[in-house]
């Protein structure tokens, strides 16, 4: 977890701190992009672009919390833009390798299958699910980042969870039948 910047230092995050900021937040930015795009090289490219944009913007950000909020927001919006611009195909669920004995939380097969199911969600629900379960953010925080009503965020979350549960149950059933 990121350590907060002391109040007296918060006002002037200098350029010399940039390398430290990159190291502190690189896993967060890269993981949001990776879970959204399901493509390692695209995720790294996008994450680098986000940090380049941060470098230009750094002087106007007042604290580490502000930096983190800004990074989540810009990464999310860039992910959606990237997907729309490149028209990346949905992840094919048939590519999932089969396993004889699924499945409990922490099972690699289950995790891989869930990541692919998440990557097959529509753009905004996908980003909401990633921010909720990767970043452990509350619906209110997500609504601030995506500038949408809290009720809409909660609704997307419920529908996405229901769909994921349904698809997961179907996938498990298919595996068990085999």
């Amino acid at each position, binding site marked *: 977890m990121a350590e907060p910047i002391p109040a007296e230092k918060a006002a002037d995050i200098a350029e010399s701190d940039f*390398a430290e900021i*990159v190291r502190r937040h690189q896993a967060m930015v890269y*993981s949001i992009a*990776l879970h959204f795009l399901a493509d390692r090289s695209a995720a790294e490219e996008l994450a680098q672009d986000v940090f380049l944009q941060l470098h230009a913007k750094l002087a106007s950000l007042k604290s580490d919390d502000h930096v983190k909020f800004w990074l989540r927001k810009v990464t999310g919006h860039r992910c959606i833009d990237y997907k729309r611009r490149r028209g990346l195909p949905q992840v094919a669920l048939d590519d999932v390798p089969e396993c004889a004995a699924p499945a409990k939380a*922490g099972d690699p097969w289950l*995790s*891989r299958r869930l990541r692919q199911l998440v990557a097959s969600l529509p753009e905004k629900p996908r980003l909401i699910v990633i921010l909720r379960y990767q970043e452990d953010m509350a619906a209110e925080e997500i609504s601030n980042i995506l500038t949408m009503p809290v009720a809409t965020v909660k609704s997307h979350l419920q529908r996405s*969870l229901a769909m994921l549960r349904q698809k997961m149950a179907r996938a498990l059933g298919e595996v068990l039948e085999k």
Partner: protein
Amino acid sequence: MSVDNDTKRTEDALKHALRRQDAPDGFADRVLARVAAHNSTEAPRGYHDSWWQLFTRPAVRWATAAALAAALVAGGLHYRQVQFEKAQAERAQGEAAKQRLMLALRIASSKLQLARSKVNEINADQTENHEEKE
């Protein structure tokens, strides 16, 4: 109860599946290299832009106009001074030439005076000799 447990299990599984992953090795170094490259290509253009943008500021425009006016006045004064010194030098040269001419005339005049007195002496001697013979 069953639905709640199901939801809880799905949420736990999602948290595990979507946990943060480390960025690839050297990620931060690559970002810093891109920032450095970006800065090195942007700096000259920024400098160029700011050089021109200086003249959009009223204070800089006034200062430039004042500097040009001062340069014109200084140039005019310098030209006038050079012309004055040149005229003075020419006047001094003329005066010196006049002095030399006057000296030459005085020397010539004294020489003529001497020659004239010699001629008069010779004429006087010849007249005396002529009278003695008669």
